[in-house]
């Protein structure tokens, strides 16, 4: 019905969405091209593109780029999925059970602000330097963020909805599944977006753990040798990956939490 207006609005939005990165890119090009900054610090977009293409063709440190990408994506994927599920479950449980909340309070909240770097030695000790440590390091931070989000989100459940469910015969678990969880979804979806950002930015720290594959490794290794174009290419790859994941979650959020969606006035 409102299709034509809708389509032109979508086009307008797409244009605006692209405007800022294009403007930044132009600025970058100008800065690099006009020699405002030394290329050793801020390599030109061409140089970054060239290193990207080089990695695409020849890999990095003898490993194909796809293998690096797959290694990182695998780690982040497993850690994120597991961490999110556990975090949401624990968070909702804490919201409903005073005992669970009290028991988990101190360990969770003391752990959350601790820098990954501080945990690396312990993780090496307990989980070695293999995949397990890397995955657990990411998983932990995802879990802790999701726990906060889910618990806070559960507070948004309307008391009357919970009461209605109980007097319609819902057991504890059913109230959980059918009332608390949906009510917490707005905050859970936000939590997922924030946690994905955190997971990716911990990737580098986790791949400090004796890694020789992954985007984090590329960034770290290139930074050590001050191969700035490669650092930029790696960082932008991480950024692009994160942006894609974020858009996916934002879109999913709007679909899943459809009852919060509002007429665009």
């Amino acid at each position, binding site marked *: 019905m409102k299709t034509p207006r809708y389509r032109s609005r979508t086009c307008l939005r797409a244009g605006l969405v692209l405007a800022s990165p294009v403007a930044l890119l132009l600025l970058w090009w100008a800065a690099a091209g006009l020699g405002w900054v030394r290329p*050793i610090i801020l390599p030109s977009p061409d140089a970054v593109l060239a290193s990207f293409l080089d990695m695409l063709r020849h890999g990095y440190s*003898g490993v194909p780029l796809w293998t690096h990408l797959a290694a990182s994506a695998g780690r982040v994927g497993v850690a994120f999925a597991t961490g999110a599920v556990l975090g949401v479950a624990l968070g909702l449980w804490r919201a409903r059970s005073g005992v669970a909340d009290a028991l988990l309070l101190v360990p969770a909240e003391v752990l959350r602000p601790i820098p990954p770097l501080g945990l690396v030695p312990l993780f090496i000790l307990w989980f070695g*330097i293999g995949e397990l440590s890397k995955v657990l390091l990411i998983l932990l931070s995802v879990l802790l963020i999701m726990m906060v989000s889910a618990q806070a989100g559960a507070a948004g459940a309307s008391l009357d909805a919970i009461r209605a469910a109980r007097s319609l015969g819902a057991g504890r678990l059913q109230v959980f599944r059918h009332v608390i969880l949906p009510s917490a979804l707005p905050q859970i979806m936000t939590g997922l977006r924030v946690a994905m950002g955190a997971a990716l930015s911990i990737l580098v720290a986790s791949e400090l753990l004796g890694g*020789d594959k992954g985007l984090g490794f590329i960034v770290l290794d290139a930074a050590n*040798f001050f191969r700035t174009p490669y650092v930029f290419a790696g960082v932008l790859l991480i950024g692009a990956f994160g942006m894609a994941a974020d858009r996916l979650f934002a879109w999913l959020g709007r679909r899943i939490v459809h009852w919060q969606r509002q007429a665009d006035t």
Partner: protein
Amino acid sequence: QPLPVRIGYQTGDINVLLMYAANAKLFEAQQLAVTLVPFPAGPAMLPALAASEIDLAWMGEFPAVTGYSNGMPIEILMVERLDATNVRLAVNPAAGIQSLADLKGKRIAASVGSTSHNHLLHALKQAGLRQEDVTIVNLAPANMPPAYLAGQVDAALTWEPNIGLIEQEGARTLATTRSLGMITGGIWVSRQAFTREQPETVQRFLKAWRLAQQAYQGAPREVRQYEAARVKQSGDAFDALIARQTAQHPGFEAQLTAEVLGAPGQELDARFVRHLRGIGDFLLAEKRIQALPADWRGLINTRPLQQFLAEPPR
């Protein structure tokens, strides 16, 4: 059946022989199943050694001393590389620094707790300055070039490749390890338990390493190609880098002389071990350790080398 061994190394340093030995299959020829585990820097390897996640480690002498002084059961098997000019002090020509004495009041980048910190204190002492007379800016080596370019520091003291980059940007070299009368280098460190329990593995490793050293003398450019590829530099650029380092790789016989680790029983008087003890004094003075190790001899174990030289495996 190949014997397993896990080797830690620093991605941020130059590892010519290790990359050659690994890529040219020298370890496999000795029936060793080597797993190379990269680390960004030496200190990061200490927990891995402590947790027995790696067996051998190539690192600077500095983290080895901090680890040992903190009670880690590790030992130095040999000095892999001695650099006369790898670590350098480069200054901004615009800062008006002509001599070490001119450092007074300047901002100098160094990595606190590393050999560069130690070098800096030596340089200051030579110029009759104290630590308080300058501003030490604590930076990781990779962060020094941007800090230099941004005019945030007047001088930087670190090693290749970052010191080379700073010099390329116009910094003038004011001092080197040699000019300061110091030594520094990379060493092979092992878990004491590993050396004790896997003597055969250690012997095979030494065999492979000796072959690598010999090959390097014969065809340096060919041996360097693997490391040059890893750090993505052309053959010429990499040769220049090595030349700037003035790196030498003491042979096994040379290890047991007073210039390096000393003859059996005389380790404490050897030059490199005196250098290690100097680091110990530095750590104590900097309050990074409570007390010096009771016995420095525990840090040096040349017995595998001795055995190798006495009866080299076929």
